[in-house]
């Protein structure tokens, strides 16, 4: 992949074969940084990267907010029900990913009950009707829907290991319920939050199917861009360049997260 990103695209896609290089080295420099120059020359690619990061960040945050109450509910409930609840969380995986996304197409479609409901509420307030499908909103919904279990599971695993006596101790020492959460539960759950965030953030960043199906024409993300380079434009070197830029950024993010999650960083 690294090598490919420094080569030139062939006339009919793919790569310029290596053996040509030796015959006419001047015209075909073989390894170039042309694709990287191209990446940085046009702001649109950078913009797509930024947008993808925004979508991934937003998805991660919403997943944390949605997963936390559910994960702590499961962790606190009786052992007998925990397995059932975990099974229900994982149940959507039993059906195909694409089918579930297409299902959202129907749910968010202009003729769906949800659309009618939302638009009738909006018209009550005198706001023009909206289309839910093929919008950034639909992409976000799809992203959250697909990745929520990846936040719930690590968070649950973390919360389940909390010693309830620590909450008793905090309460005994004068902590209100909000203080107990903020000073005891939350800092202890950070490792779960971080691993859940990695499991949500990284796949969302590279996701192409959901923006393809639920997003509009302007809602493409890095994933779509890369996919197009390989399958439609057939510019493999540029596709590779994009992939490498993505990998580098993911590495930076993961490094940052694991640095934040290192033990003993938090003090009150």
């Amino acid at each position: 992949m690294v090598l490919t990103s420094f080569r030139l695209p062939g006339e009919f896609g793919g790569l310029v074969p290596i053996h040509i290089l030796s015959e006419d080295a001047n015209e075909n420099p073989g390894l170039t940084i042309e694709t990287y120059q191209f990446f940085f020359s046009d702001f649109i690619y950078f913009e797509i990267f930024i947008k993808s990061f925004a979508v991934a960040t937003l998805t991660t945050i919403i997943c944390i907010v949605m997963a936390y109450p559910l994960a702590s509910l499961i962790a606190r409930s009786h052992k007998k029900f925990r397995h059932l609840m975990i099974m229900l969380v994982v149940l959507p995986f039993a059906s195909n990913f694409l089918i579930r996304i297409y299902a959202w197409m129907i749910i968010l479609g202009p003729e769906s009950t949800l659309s009618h409901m939302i638009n009738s509420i909006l018209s009550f307030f005198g706001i023009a009707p909206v289309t839910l499908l093929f919008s950034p909103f639909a992409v976000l919904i799809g992203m959250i829907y697909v990745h929520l279990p990846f936040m719930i599971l690590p968070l649950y695993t973390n919360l389940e290991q909390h010693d309830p006596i620590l909450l008793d101790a905090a309460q005994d020492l004068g902590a209100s319920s909000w203080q107990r959460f903020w000073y005891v539960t939350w800092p202890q759950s950070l490792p779960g939050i971080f691993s859940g965030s990695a499991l949500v953030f990284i796949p969302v960043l590279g996701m192409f199917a959901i923006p393809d199906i639920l997003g509009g024409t302007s809602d493409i993300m890095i994933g779509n861009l890369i996919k197009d380079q390989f399958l439609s434009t057939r510019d493999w070197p540029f596709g590779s360049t994009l992939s490498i830029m993505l990998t580098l950024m993911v590495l930076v993010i993961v490094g940052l997260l694991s640095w934040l999650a290192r033990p003993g960083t938090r003090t009150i």
Partner: protein
Amino acid sequence: MTLLEVRNVTKRFGSFTAVDDVNITIKTGEFFTLLGPSGCGKTTLLRMIAGFDAPDNGQILLDNKDIIDLPPEKRPFHTVFQSYALFSHMTVADNIGFPLKMSGKTSREIKIRVAETLSEVELSSFSHRYPHELSGGQKQRVAFARGLINQPRLLLLDEPLGALDEKLRENMQRELISLQAKANVTFIYVTHAQNEALALSHRIAVMNQGKIEQIDEPSRIYNFPINRFVADFIGKINMLDAQVIEASGYHLKLKVTGLGEVMAPVREHVKIGDQGILAIRPEQVRIDPLGSEVAAKFQLVGKIKDFLYIGDVTTYLIELPNSIRIEALQPNSFPGHAKLFEIGDPVVVSWQEHSAQFLPD
């Protein structure tokens, strides 16, 4: 002065009565111990005082005001848990400062008070360590410091020395006594270890099956147990089945199964015909070689059956007539002698009349 009063408190879990109509009055500055076997309700009682459980019946009064409706965080009590319950994600300093932070003290004040407390418990150099980097005794001291720093009216201690080894425990017991005296805080201490209770407490409440059997000073609990359970639970004691055949003035005449008539000091509410036990501590039983001059009025001839040499003392098991067995404790304070008697030696067993007592069933 009365600090806390537990009045007719009952707690049931389903059909099981964990705490059964308990009454306790705790004085300011007292080191009060709840002592009993596991499952006797002592921890449940402590949790009710702390506010984690609500009693089904009865009242808990602080300064004569009922505090049943106050949640734990609003009660001016702190607890030292058996597992220490230190916050593993906080440093020693942050753990100790936690109660101050929760009560809204400024970070400057917290810093000063934490530094003071750390030096008091000799942990100043550990302030930036995390709990998992501490030894058991150090964790223990952090837990005490955290419980005491915000000057609670009452410190509740739930078997805090249970996880320490024997040697360390003895040191911590001493430390605990001086800590309590210095901090001038009332302690309620829960334990199942009777020697710990005797060593530490001003007063002890012996609990069994949810009920209080006896509340008294350690020496009185030990020397004058009120019934069979207390006598048996606290220390070692010889128990011989007996029946009252005569009660006059200061004496009881008892018919002890297998041994015949034995005198014992009189006690209240005992009448002729009562069944019970004659109880006598092993260290009150004197043994002498057969043929030696023994002053005590009551004496029996027996034979050494077995002994247990512990170092400072030896416990002899003596067989009396009719296969009645009795234990006698002898200090090994004779230089050069490992023990005074061998198995099979005939001995004279005797005790002072007032050192035995009759406990009715």
